[in-house]
């Protein structure tokens, strides 16, 4: 048993897994950054109640929230002229943005409407009120659900193995395939 474990710990296997870890981290990092930007935008759009922007945001959020991530990853892989790792990151970003959008909207909703009236009566514009008064307060409420969602993103990167991207899970399966019979 010890010999087999030693075989697993060989340098090229360690490097192999480290590559997987790096891909996992890169996909999750990009997904978190971009989905936060796009999600905030979507959340504010939906919250704004603007006849067109709110509707666009709602359609976007509901369509992406109702689809399995695995399906999006496959669909994007097969219909976009992108490398698998990029189409996977894009699918994850667009999917996560829909969820972030709902978290942002929830956060904004939790801020007392009275704050709006107070700020507007002080001569603040809509955007100034949003930027300086409402969004910072909402952000504080959003931190726990956002953290949870971003942890989920790191976990969800394992889905991109389905299109052959060798992230951590994929590398693990390959090693299992090579050394499984000795276990």
């Amino acid at each position: 048993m010890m010999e087999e474990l030693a075989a697993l710990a060989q340098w090229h296997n360690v490097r192999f897994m480290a590559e997987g870890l790096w891909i996992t981290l890169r996909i999750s990092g990009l997904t978190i950054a971009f989905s936060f930007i796009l999600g905030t935008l979507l959340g504010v759009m939906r919250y704004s109640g603007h006849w067109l922007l709110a509707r666009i945001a709602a359609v976007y959020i509901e369509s992406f929230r109702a689809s399995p991530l695995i399906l999006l990853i496959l669909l994007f892989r097969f219909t976009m002229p992108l490398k698998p790792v990029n189409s996977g990151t894009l699918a994850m970003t667009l999917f996560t943005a829909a969820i972030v959008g709902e978290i942002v909207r929830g956060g904004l909703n939790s801020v007392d409407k009275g704050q709006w009236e107070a700020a507007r009566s002080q001569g603040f514009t809509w955007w100034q009120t949003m930027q300086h008064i409402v969004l910072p307060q909402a952000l504080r409420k959003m931190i726990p659900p956002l953290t949870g969602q971003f942890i989920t993103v790191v976990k969800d990167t394992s889905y991109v193995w389905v299109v052959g991207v060798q992230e951590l899970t994929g590398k693990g399966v390959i090693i299992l395939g090579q050394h499984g019979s000795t276990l």
Partner: protein
Amino acid sequence: MDRFAAFKWQALFRDWHILLEGLGRTASTAGLALLLALALGVLFGVLATAPWRSGRTVSRLYVSLIQNTPLVTQVFFLYYALPHFDIMLPTPVVGVLGLGVYHGAYVTEVVRAGIQAIHRGQLEAALSQGFSYVQAMRYVILPQAAQIVLPPMTNQAVALIKNSSILAMISGGDLMFQADSWSASTGYYGPAYLTVWAIYFAICFPLAQLARRWEERVRLSRGGEVTAA
């Protein structure tokens, strides 16, 4: 538009029963997994708020162990690794167990939040009336908590249905697998993926809307103090 050519759609409609079989497997797996998740969630959710430290620790351990590892890894462990320890679970069981235990951890958090939202005085009142802890939970706290947890619970159900597509990665015969396998053998993936997306949407969207409506109602009846869990 090659990938959505008419003859590819015709081929899909000719083989429609393949998708139907997949839908059946998705429904049965998701249904059973949901029951398991509910059972685990109520059990560990009650433990999380129990007066005994060991109960809280066990619950905490379960939730953090499950919530901090990917579902794919957990399912692969059940599927590929357990047989090396002479535990060969059939694929459908791997699906139900994997999904049930995974979402059970999230349901635990929902149930815990629901119980904590009920005023502590109610528990004390019930206990002082001679109820045991379990009785107080069963007859006083949980029925009230149920109303609060309904919306987030529905969201968990939606997440579970979507995540059941994980079966596609272990030859599980679910909707996603059937579409994937069919499009892989024919090469006509365009119509297959689009159709499957529409089916998932038709199931998940109404459920999500239901959750939203309930959430709104709970928020109104509780004076806006409860935010999305």
